[in-house]
């Protein structure tokens, strides 16, 4: 294993540990004792103490943290202070839904942004490139939930082509699953595609100026083939950084889009948890989101080495 791989893995694990402390710490310092909240204002101190014991919130903070962490490792997020249900299965369940949404949005973003950005770069002095650039500006300016509402109004209500929301697990009805996913994933993906396309454009523009692309032309490759064979993979290096950052944005964006399209994902779970003052649930969901972002960044770091031999530590 290369030194770089081990360092990145170390950084990943350390970030996880720090993130867990931060997430736990934030919710621990928030005012409002969960037992008191659960029992209401008229509860007797004995009853509160009893419930605190049951929740484990009577223990010192450090012990609570350790207990929570120990559970996290095996996927046990504890029981909700409000509904008394196990949090783990809910989070895992909802995570699956959100990952479908985010994954589909990312694929849509890439499918739109890579060709659009490349064309914008290659034709940056011509009308077609400028028109595309203008569209991507517009795409950045319009937020995902607005695109979502407009898409629902047009494709679902006016044309009745696609359902306006809801979620069906793919195992149950794959066709309905896809139909329901199209609008929310597009709404979420297009906003990111607009941003990503601009980065693809500038990365491809940079690559087009590179000497090795001129070498490729001098070898007898047509401009298009030179770009496809030698350019795009080089352009992928800066773009993959942006992609990693965007996945984090997508997870956050999903929270809003899930609301618009009535999708039972992690976002709606988080909002429900906040509304019910269900601290442990919120803590669990936020931690899962943080883990997801860290995993993505870690994966991007490893992806660099896969793309770029200069980072593989061979000299």
């Amino acid at each position, binding site marked *: 294993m*290369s030194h770089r791989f081990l360092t990145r893995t170390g950084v990943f694990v350390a970030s996880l540990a720090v993130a867990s402390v931060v997430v736990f710490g934030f919710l621990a310092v928030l005012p409002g004792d969960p037992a008191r909240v659960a029992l209401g204002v008229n509860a007797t101190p004995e009853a509160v103490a009893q419930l605190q014991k049951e929740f484990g919130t009577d223990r010192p903070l450090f012990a609570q943290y350790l207990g929570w962490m120990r559970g996290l490792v095996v996927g046990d997020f504890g029981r909700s202070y409000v509904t008394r249900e196990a949090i783990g299965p809910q989070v895992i369940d909802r995570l699956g839904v959100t990952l479908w949404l985010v994954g589909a949005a990312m694929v849509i973003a890439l499918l739109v942004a890579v060709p659009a950005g490349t064309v914008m770069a290659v034709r940056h002095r011509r009308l077609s490139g400028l028109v595309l650039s203008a569209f991507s500006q517009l795409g950045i300016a319009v937020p995902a939930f607005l695109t979502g509402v407009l898409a629902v109004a047009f494709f679902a209500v006016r044309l009745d082509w696609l359902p306006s929301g809801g979620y069906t697990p793919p195992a149950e009805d794959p066709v309905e699953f896809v139909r329901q996913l199209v609008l929310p994933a597009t709404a979420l993906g297009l906003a990111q595609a607009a941003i990503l396309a601009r980065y693809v454009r500038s990365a491809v523009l940079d690559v087009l100026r590179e000497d090795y692309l*001129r*070498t490729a032309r001098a070898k*007898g490759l047509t401009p298009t083939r030179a770009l496809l064979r030698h350019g795009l993979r080089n352009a992928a290096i800066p773009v993959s950084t942006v992609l990693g950052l965007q996945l984090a944005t997508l997870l956050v964006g999903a929270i809003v889009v899930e609301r618009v399209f009535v999708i039972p994902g992690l976002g709606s779970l988080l909002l429900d948890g906040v509304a019910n003052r269900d601290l442990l649930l919120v803590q669990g969901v936020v931690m899962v989101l943080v883990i997801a972002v860290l995993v993505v960044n870690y994966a991007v770091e490893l992806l660099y080495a896969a793309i770029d031999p200069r980072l593989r530590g*061979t000299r």
Partner: protein
Amino acid sequence: MSKETLTVRRLAVHRHDGEALVTGVDLTLAPGERVGLIGESGSGKSLTALAIMGLLPEGLRASGSVRLAGTSTDLLDTGERALADLRGNRLSMVFQEPMSALNPLMRVGDQVAEVLRLHQTGIGRAAAAAKAVELLDQVRLPDPAQAARAYPHQLSGGQRQRVLIAMALANEPAVLLCDEPTSALDVTVQAQILDLIVAGTAHRDTSLLFITHDLAVVATVCSRVLVMRDGSIVESGPVEQVFTRPQHPYTQALLDAAEPPASDAASSVQKAGQSLLSVENAARVYTRPRTSLLTPRPRVAGLRDVSFDVAAGQRFGIVGESGSGKSTLVRLLAGLDRPTSGSVRFAGREISALPERRLRFLREDVQMVFQDPSGSLDPRMRVGEIVAEPLVALGRARLRTERANRVRDLLDAVGLPADAAVRFPHEFSGGQRQRISIARALAPAPKVLIADEPVSALDASVRSRILELLASLADSHELTLVFVSHDLAVVRQICDTIGVLHQGELVEIGPTEQVYTQPAHPYTRRLLTAIPTVTRALAGVSASDLASAPADLPEH
């Protein structure tokens, strides 16, 4: 049809707003003939080659005619697809910058194989890969099978240029265009690459158009030469005729700049006073970042056991190729870095142990001029501010009028008009920008001027004027000059004493003329052998003569 491989008639290159960058270029290449195209930067040499290849940058248009033997149509009227079939096949090109000319993400063997598979129908993947290794062997890469599996960043600049030559010659082209293929390389590596180009084209009967600013290289490599200026050919003919009896004054000027008379610097040794800069057993070891947890951080010796003295008033030259430790030494002398062991003293004061805040005396007395005149000037500052900045930084000339006067005097001293002060760096040419750098360096009235490759980015004619300026300023301002360069000819022109650096060691030190005429160290001899000169080329010294290294030094 004539027997010429390539016939170019009335070639012109226009910008789309109509401005002509190249006009009326006529040239022919016979099979196996080697023709040089010389001129200074901006003369249109590269555009001519790119126009022939059909690779002009966006916004430029070529007119006239370019005919290649064996093809029925004019290349300028040929469509992109048909042109692409010719490029890398019948018509090849090697560019200047080997460091960036290869795809960094692809193994070099694959890049060579690609050009074979593009143009040779029916050649299989394995056959192309095997042929690629064979080609890499022909360009004398050590262990070609291993080299084929390397990525570009694992090869040196010279090795990368070999790969590019292998690529260009892979399909036995009728014509090879070389655009400054050795200008970015060390002189000993240049000698080997030139030898390779000559041997490779001769072997295949390929016609060569060799573009360079270096007359000595053309004289060594080519039999015929075209002189280009401001977009047109001003003179052409056999090398020995053009270089011995130039008809055009511009050619004469280029020749004068290429072979400057040895200056009187060598005779000025006597005025050297007491030791001003003193380096004693200085060594600098760098540690590279870890590549593995199990092995210790790799250590690289940047400089080992270097000792010398520079006396006040001396003009001390430091010569070495890339990686020889020149920059490390400069950083130590300027107090920008500290030796791992040994000492560096300025006017008797040890500077290697002092923290930055106590090096103020050094910042006043030692000033630097850098290689890249455009990169070392802040593009958003006016020239007057740039020149006055050291005064402000050192808290001198606090009054605005006082500073303005000083700036005017300095600009005058370096030969720039007084109104230069209110203009921005981009409004000046490369040579003028280097004058600005020199004016800035002189602002605090330093005792020592360290010039790090100050003329390497400049054309030959500008180069000699900057050197003259430095020499006269050194006299008039009683400066001690430390002049660092890879170019022995330049150092010889200005320095009275030379130190030769090789792999971090000072292998030879002595009076300039002695080092030149009686080099003691084999490395110095090899360096001197490898330098092409017009005179020696006309006397019959060939590229392979330059490349023949003394046997006691390994090739690198």
